[in-house]
C-alpha cells in the first residue's frame, strides 16, 4: 500500500475477488459487491439483534432501532401522508442501506459502496420506477396530470410539458449524483489531507511539525464526513418520500 498512499483515487478501484463470467457478461464478485453484502448483513443483523429481546422499556441499542423506525416513519408520514406508509419498507430499507454503506465507508481500508455513481443511480432508478409504476397503476393516465401545471396558456402548454418531463427525468440523475458526489468528494479530500501528513513527515523534523495542520484538518474532516454520511442518507430518504407523494397524489 506504500505506493498508493498519495493516490486519492486508488480507494475507489474495483477489484475482482471471485471472477464469474456468465454468457460473456462479467458478473464477478467484486470488493464493491462484498461491501454491499456487508452493508446488508450489518444493517439487518443490527436491527434483528437489537429488537429480538423486544422489551417494553427499550435498552440503549433497542432504542436506536426504534429511533430509526420512528424517524423514517415520521418523515414518510409528513411527506406522503398516512397512505404513504405502505411504502415504509422500501423507504426504510433504502435509508438503512445508504446510511450503513456511508458509515462503513468511513472505516480506513473499507470500500465506500455509495461513492460509485452506478450504485446510487441504481437506487434512484428503483425509486423512480416505483413512482412511475405505482402512479400508473393507481391513477392510470391521470398520472400524466403531473406534467401539466394548472393555469398555463394553451399555446405554451407543449413547451411547459416538455420542460416538466425533462425535469422529472432529471430527478433520478440529481438524486444519484448528489449522493455519489458527496461521498466521492469527501473521501478524496480526506485522502488528500492524510496524504499530506505522510509526505510532510517524510521531510524530517520540520515536516513532522508542519504535518500537525493537515492532521488536524483530517480529524475535522472525519467528523464532517460522519455528518455528511447521515445527512445524505436523510436527504435520499426525504426525496424518496416526496417523489412517492407525487405517485400517490398527482395533480395534488
Amino acid at each position, binding site marked *: 500500500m506504500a505506493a498508493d498512499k498519495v493516490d486519492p483515487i486508488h480507494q475507489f478501484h474495483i477489484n475482482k475477488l471471485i471472477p464469474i463470467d456468465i454468457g460473456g457478461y462479467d458478473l464477478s464478485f467484486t470488493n464493491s459487491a462484498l461491501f454491499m453484502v456487508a452493508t446488508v448483513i450489518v444493517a439487518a443483523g443490527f436491527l434483528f439483534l437489537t429488537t429480538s429481546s423486544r422489551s*417494553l422499556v427499550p435498552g440503549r441499542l433497542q432504542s436506536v432501532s426504534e429511533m430509526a423506525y420512528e424517524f423514517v416513519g415520521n418523515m414518510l408520514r409528513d411527506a406522503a401522508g398516512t397512505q404513504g406508509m405502505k411504502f415504509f419498507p422500501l423507504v426504510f430499507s433504502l435509508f438503512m442501506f445508504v446510511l450503513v454503506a456511508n458509515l462503513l465507508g468511513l472505516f480506513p481500508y473499507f470500500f465506500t459502496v455509495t461513492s460509485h455513481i452506478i450504485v446510487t443511480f441504481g437506487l434512484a432508478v428503483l425509486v423512480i420506477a416505483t413512482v412511475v409504476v405505482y402512479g400508473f397503476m393507481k391513477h392510470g393516465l391521470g398520472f400524466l396530470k403531473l406534467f401539466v*401545471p394548472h393555469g398555463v396558456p394553451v399555446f405554451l402548454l407543449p413547451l411547459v410539458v416538455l420542460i416538466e418531463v*425533462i425535469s422529472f427525468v432529471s430527478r433520478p440523475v440529481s438524486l444519484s*449524483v448528489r449522493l455519489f458526489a458527496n461521498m466521492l468528494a469527501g473521501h478524496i479530500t480526506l485522502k488528500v489531507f492524510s496524504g499530506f501528513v505522510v509526505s510532510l513527515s517524510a521531510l524530517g523534523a520540520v515536516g513532522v511539525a508542519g504535518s500537525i495542520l493537515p492532521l488536524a484538518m483530517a480529524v475535522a474532516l472525519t467528523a464532517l464526513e460522519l455528518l455528511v454520511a447521515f445527512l445524505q442518507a436523510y436527504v435520499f430518504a426525504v426525496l424518496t418520500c416526496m417523489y412517492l407523494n407525487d405517485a400517490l397524489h398527482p*395533480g395534488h
Partner: protein
Amino acid sequence: MADKNGPDGTGETGRGNQHEPDIRDDDLERRRRDLEASLATRRPGRLEGKDDAKAGSVAGYGQALKLSSEFIAGVVVGAGIGWVIDRLAGTSPWGLIVFLLLGFGAGVLNVMRSAGVVAEFGQGDKSRRGQDDKK
C-alpha cells in the same frame, strides 16, 4: 406485550410500596401526559432546528451541492434526450440544440423548485383543485 409489562410493573411497585399506590398511579399518569405534551412541542422545534443548521457553513455547502446537482441534472438529461433523438432520427444537431435549451429550462425549474420559489410538481393555480377530487 402485557406480560412484558410484568417485570417492569414489579419494578414500579417496588418503589411504589413506599408511597400510596393510587397517588403513585395518578402521579405517573400526570407525568406521562406532561412528557407527551413537552415531546409534542419539541418535535416541530427539532425540525426547525434542522433548518437552522442548514444555514450554517456545512449545511450551506450541502445546499450548494444540492442546487448545483439539480441544475446540472436538468441540463445533462436534456442534452442526453436530444442526443438520443439525433441518433435515432438523424436530425443532428437540431435535437441536441433544442433539447439542450429545454434542459437548461428544466434545470432552472429544478433549482427554483428545490429552493421553494416555484410550486411543486402538478401544483399551480388552486382554482383547478376542485377538479381532481378523485385522488
